[in-house]
């Protein structure tokens, strides 16, 4: 069964249909990539899934349950984590604090207990810290643990954002252009992490990406989007040689 399904989802902003009747299934344990030229509607799909935007029509289904109208703050609790195209970390907090905020949806302590920092809170904090340290070790972020995000280089921040999403312990991870702004080496590292996330952590990934070599390296299936519409879906090779996709990337007009 599919872990995630989008059924004919659409959203319009004023006159434009940013996402137009898009349907796709993501299977448990795969890396599913979304490609397409700028403005194709890729990020908008992520914003629909994380419920920052509401779909004008269509359905979103996760583990067999519809969540088209679930409030945005509940999405992490369902087990869906994401990163942002233009890094959205908490810049005036340390790396450690950023990752701990990723644990928020797992926090069960009461407000009154927090006021007194009761033993239950202390115990929960230590448990969160252990989980966070696992992620820090996984991504090799030890040396930046106490740095303010604002003082970290872009490449590191990109990894921190991935780490923060992993702290949610998601079943489904949405990565919006994980390699943008990274140099060749860093992109390669990102590729290995995505493979590890799939193989070792067993997390299903939906990735929006422009770097075709990264897409080829990690993806099981690819969906190509243009003007908010699906123009091709299948193996990475097949999608890249699809005539519509070639046309879209060469900037040719696509017949509606």
């Amino acid at each position, binding site marked *: 069964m599919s872990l995630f399904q989008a059924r004919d989802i659409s959203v319009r902003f004023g006159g434009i249909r940013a996402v137009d009747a898009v349907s796709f299934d993501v299977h448990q344990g795969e890396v599913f990539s979304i490609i397409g030229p700028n403005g194709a509607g890729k990020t908008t799909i992520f914003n629909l899934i994380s419920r920052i935007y509401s779909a004008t029509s269509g359905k979103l289904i996760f583990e067999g349950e519809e969540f088209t109208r679930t409030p945005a*703050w509940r999405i992490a609790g369902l087990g869906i984590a994401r990163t942002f195209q233009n890094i959205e970390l908490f810049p005036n907090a340390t790396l450690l604090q950023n990752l701990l*905020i990723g644990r928020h949806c797992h926090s069960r302590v009461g407000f009154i207990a927090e006021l007194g920092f009761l033993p239950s809170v202390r115990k929960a904090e230590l448990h969160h810290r252990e989980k966070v340290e696992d992620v820090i070790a996984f991504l090799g972020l030890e040396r930046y643990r106490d740095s303010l995000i604002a003082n970290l280089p872009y490449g590191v921040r990109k990894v921190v954002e991935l780490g923060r999403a992993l702290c949610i312990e998601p079943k489904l991870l949405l990565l919006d252009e994980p390699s943008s702004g990274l140099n060749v080496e860093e992109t390669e590292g990102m590729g290995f992490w995505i493979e590890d996330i799939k193989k070792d952590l067993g997390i299903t990934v939906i990735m929006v990406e422009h770097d075709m070599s990264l897409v080829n390296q990690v993806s099981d299936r690819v969906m190509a989007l243009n003007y908010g519409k699906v123009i091709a879906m299948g193996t990475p090779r097949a999608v890249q040689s699809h005539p519509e996709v070639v046309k879209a990337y060469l900037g040719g007009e696509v017949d509606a």
Partner: protein
Amino acid sequence: MRHLFRTRYQQDIALWRHNGDRFWYALLALIVLLAPAVLGEFYIGELGAVFIFAIAGVGLMLLVGYTGLISLGHAAFLGIGAYTNAVLLAQGVPFLVTLPIAGLFTALCGAAIGRPTLRMSGLYLAIATLAFGSIVGTVFQKWTAVTGGFDGFAVPTPYVFGMSIEGATGIYYVSLAVLVLVLLVAANLLRSPTGRALVAIRDSEVSAQSMGIHLARYKTLAFAISAGMTGLAGALFAHYVRYLAPDAFDVLLSVQFVTIVFVGGLGSLRGAVLGAMFVRLLPQFIAVVRDSLPFGIGRLPGLEPSLFGLTLVLVILFQPGGLNGMWLKTKQWFQAFPFKRQASFRRQKSYARSERLR
């Protein structure tokens, strides 16, 4: 430089990181506990007022410095706390009951103002809270049946465990105890999920939401906690002034509170205390030097508010870290001593988002 060698995660959630800290804070505690034995009644009264303002400062710091929401209406919360306390005392309710009720009731009022302003930030929120403040001020003036209006309200003497705390010293110790409690609660919150949620909202609402943080709930909570602490300060303030006048809780007082958090240093509890010291001591300082100022500057009306405004602007422009930032830099300088760290003292140009007042 001091480097901390950590061997357990416990160390990162401890309130005090080194034994050195513990020593200095113990010394400070001893000094403030013994101060009434040394200082005269007037100075103890003023120091008590510093504590009261620091309590409100910690409350506003949680809202402005940690959640990134501004309020220009905190004088109203101080007033609500003050009147609640005084009115209940006059009904014969004991002080140890009226004090927490004043805090809780003001917290409720805070939640009530937090709720409708959820979608506002920056200038809009500033104006909404300013309006709230002036509405409450008008209520204090017009609701004469309860507040006594401009006739004022004589605050009954509080009793703690049968002892009357009439003089400045009594209020001094009660305020000190409440300040310590408020600081402890704030520090506990900040090392718990709730405190981190507030910081997350301050830095990025959209990603806070994706981390599972319910924006409406936490913003309302921040307003409630902030108002509640300010209400506690108000209850004590009533005893400091002894006679409540409805026009004491005006915009200028709200601006003083905002000055506390900005001059003290956004995002630091120590800053709230330092800021309160500044705000209470500046008028005293002006009073002392007033007569010796040249060109009759000392006799100009509005000298005090102008100086508050001027410092606020200067701090925002040149020292975004506020007094707390200066303190940290000086400490660093001593720790690094023979080595100078030029960069630490260079003018800071990066502002936290909360400092830009979205």
